[in-house]
C-alpha cells in the first residue's frame, strides 16, 4: 500500500469514526414523549446554569435562610447536605457528591419537584445540565456525557443516545429550614458562592407558587381533583402510584397504606412542612407521630424510634433501616399530568 493509499484509508477511518460519534451523541428528533408538547422555555441549553462546584457552610454560619424557607436534604453515608430552594430556584441542578454517592440534585421550580439522580449513568460518571426544555411544565435535564435529554418526573431518558433508559434516584427529604436544623444540626448547607451573582433573596416567578390559575406552560392532562399548586407527596410504583396531600397532615399523623401491592408508612406534619414515605418491610404497626421529638419522626410503644432517613433505633428492630419507595413531592397539577391514573389518598 503506497503512502497515498494509507492516507486515504486513514481519512476514511476518521470519517467513519466521526460519523459513528455523530450518530451516537448528536441531536436526535426521536422522542419518547410527544415532541410537540416539549416547550422551549427561552433561556436555552445551560441558559439556567447548573451548579457544578457547590460550596457549603455549616448550619450555624447560614444567615440567609428564614425558618419557613424550604430546603431539599440528602443523607448518604452519614453525611447530610441541604440545598435551599432559594438557590435551586435559580440553578435547578446541583452536581455534587454526598457521602460516597455522586448525585445530581434536580429541582424544577415550575412543578415544585426535587429529585436526586445518580450521576453514574450506563456505567459512566456524568454531570447533568438544564436543557432549557420543558415537558408538562417540568424540567428536562440533559447529561453532558451523551447529550441525552431526560424527563425529571418521568425518570427516564426521552431523547438521545440513552433513549428509554430509566434513571436511578436517591431519597431526598424536603422540609422547611427550621425543621431541617432539628433533623440534622450538623448538616452542611449549600451557600451562595455559586459562581454566579444572582439575587437569591428574590423568588423569580412572582406568585407562581401559590396562584392556582398561574401555569406558565400547558400540561397534557388537567386534573382538578386537587388544587393545582397543592403540595403533594407522590409514591410511584411500577404499575400504580398514589398521592398524599400535605393538607391531610394539618394534624401530624402516621398513615399505613398499600401502594402498588407494597405496604407503606407515610409520616407528615403540615406545621413542620415535612412529608416522608417508607416501605414497611418490617411490618411495623402501632406507630405514633413524633415530630415534636425531632429528629425522631415516629415511635412505637416498644421503644422503636424512626428517624427521617428511615433508620431505626431502639425496640426489636434496632439498627434496621426502612427502604424508601420511589417518591417525591410536587405540585398536584404536574403529578396529575404525568401520572393521570394516580390515586389520591383520602382520610
Amino acid at each position, binding site marked *: 500500500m503506497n503512502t497515498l493509499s494509507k492516507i486515504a484509508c486513514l481519512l476514511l477511518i476518521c470519517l467513519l469514526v466521526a460519523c459513528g460519534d455523530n450518530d451516537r451523541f448528536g441531536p436526535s428528533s426521536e422522542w419518547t414523549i410527544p415532541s410537540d408538547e416539549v416547550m422551549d422555555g427561552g433561556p436555552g441549553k445551560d441558559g439556567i446554569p447548573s451548579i457544578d462546584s457547590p460550596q457549603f457552610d455549616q448550619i450555624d454560619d447560614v444567615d440567609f435562610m428564614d425558618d419557613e424557607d424550604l430546603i431539599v436534604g440528602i443523607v448518604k453515608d452519614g453525611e447530610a447536605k441541604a440545598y435551599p430552594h432559594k438557590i435551586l430556584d435559580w440553578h435547578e441542578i446541583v452536581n455534587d457528591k454526598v457521602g460516597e454517592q455522586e448525585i445530581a440534585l434536580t429541582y424544577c421550580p415550575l412543578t415544585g419537584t426535587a429529585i436526586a439522580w445518580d450521576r453514574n449513568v450506563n456505567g459512566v460518571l456524568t454531570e447533568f445540565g438544564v436543557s432549557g426544555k420543558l415537558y408538562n411544565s417540568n424540567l428536562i435535564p440533559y447529561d453532558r456525557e451523551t447529550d441525552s435529554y431526560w424527563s425529571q418526573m418521568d425518570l427516564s431518558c426521552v431523547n438521545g443516545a440513552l433513549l428509554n433508559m430509566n434513571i436511578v434516584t436517591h431519597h431526598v427529604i424536603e422540609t422547611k429550614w427550621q425543621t431541617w436544623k432539628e433533623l440534622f444540626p450538623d448538616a452542611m448547607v449549600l451557600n451562595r458562592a455559586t459562581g454566579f451573582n444572582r439575587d437569591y433573596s428574590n423568588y423569580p416567578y412572582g406568585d407562581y407558587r401559590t396562584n392556582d390559575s398561574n401555569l406558565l406552560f*400547558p400540561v397534557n392532562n388537567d386534573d382538578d381533583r386537587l388544587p393545582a399548586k397543592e403540595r403533594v407527596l407522590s409514591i410511584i410504583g411500577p404499575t400504580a402510584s398514589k398521592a398524599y396531600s400535605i393538607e391531610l397532615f394539618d394534624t401530624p399523623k402516621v398513615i399505613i397504606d398499600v401502594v402498588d401491592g407494597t405496604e407503606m408508612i407515610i409520616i407528615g406534619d403540615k406545621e413542620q412542612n415535612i412529608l416522608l414515605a417508607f416501605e414497611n418491610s418490617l411490618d411495623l404497626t402501632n406507630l405514633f407521630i413524633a415530630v415534636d421529638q425531632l429528629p425522631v419522626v415516629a415511635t412505637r410503644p416498644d421503644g422503636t424510634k424512626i428517624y427521617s432517613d428511615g433508620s431505626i433505633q431502639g425496640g426489636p428492630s434496632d439498627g434496621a433501616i426502612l427502604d424508601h419507595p420511589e417518591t417525591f413531592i410536587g405540585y398536584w397539577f404536574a403529578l396529575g399530568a404525568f401520572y393521570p391514573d394516580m390515586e389520591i389518598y383520602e382520610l
Partner: protein
Amino acid sequence: MKMLWLSLFICITNFSVSAQTCCTAGAPILSGITINSNQERNFALALKYDYRSINRLIQNNEVLVNDPRSRIGMNTIVKASMTFSPKWSAGIIIPFIYQERATISERASSLGQGDIILTGQYLVFAEAFSQLSWLASVKFPTGKINHLDDRSIFLSPDMQSGSGTFDFINQLSFAYNQIGGSLINIETGVLYRINSTNENFAATQNSDGRPYKFGNEFQYIISFKRPFTINKWFVIPDLSLQYRMANANVENHTIAPNSGGQWLNAQVGIYLLPKEKLSIRPYFSFPLYQNLEGLQITTKLGAGIELGYNFSLQKN
C-alpha cells in the same frame, strides 16, 4: 434649491431609535415606521440593517455578571412609502430577521421573514416650521413562526421571526424645524402598540399549541438634528432619546414573570447626503437606563446603517 431639499429631507426622516429588547416578533421593526414627506406623489425606498448585541443580564436595574447566555439580532428592513396627497401617505415595511441564542453548550438560530407592517399617515397640519402627523399601522401575521431547534422542538416565541398576530400601532409625532432661527430641528412623538394574542403558538397537527402574547408598549421619543456643510457635503448628525415602557408578556394566559419593564435608550447617528435623492445613515445605540421586571437579558449595544432613496413622481 439644495437648502429646500435639505429641509424637506429633515422633515421626512424618521424617529430612528430602535425598540428591540430580546425578541423580534415585531418589536425592532417599530423603528422602521417613517414619517413621510408631505410632498405629493413622493416615493421613498429605504433599506436598513440593524445589529444588536443582546447580552446584558439585568435583574430589575442591576446588571448581573456570569451569564452563560448571549444573543444577537440582525434585522434587515425594506421599506417603501408613497405620498398620495398633501395630507395622506402610506407605506409598507418588510423585515427579515436573524436571531441567534448562544450558551456554553448550544447555538440556536432562526432566520426568516418577519411580520409585514402596513402604515397610513395623515398630516394633521404643516406650517412653515412645524408639522404634526398621525400614523396608524397594522402588523400582519406574515412572519415565520415555526422555527425549530436541532431536536425538532419549537424555539421560544421570542426566537421566532414573527408573532403570528395582528398588532396595531398608533403614533403621533410633532416636528419643529429651525428652532429660534437656528438650524436645530426637533422631533418628538409618542407611540402605542397594542398586541394581540397568538392562541396557538407552536401548534401542530397533533397539538393546539399554547397562547402567547407580547406585552403592549408605549414609547416617547425625542430627536434632535442639525445640518452642516462639510466640503460641499451635507451631513446631519442626530441624537435621539427613547423612553420605552412594555407590559409583561402573557404566556398560557398567565403573566410571564420575567418580562416587561422600562428602558431609556440613546441613539447617535449621522445622515450623509452624497446625492440629492440618496441618504446614508450609520448609527449606534446604547441603553442609558433599564429597569426591568425580574431577570431579563436585554440589549447592550446596537449599530446599523440605513440607505434611503427618495424621489418625486410628479412631472415638473
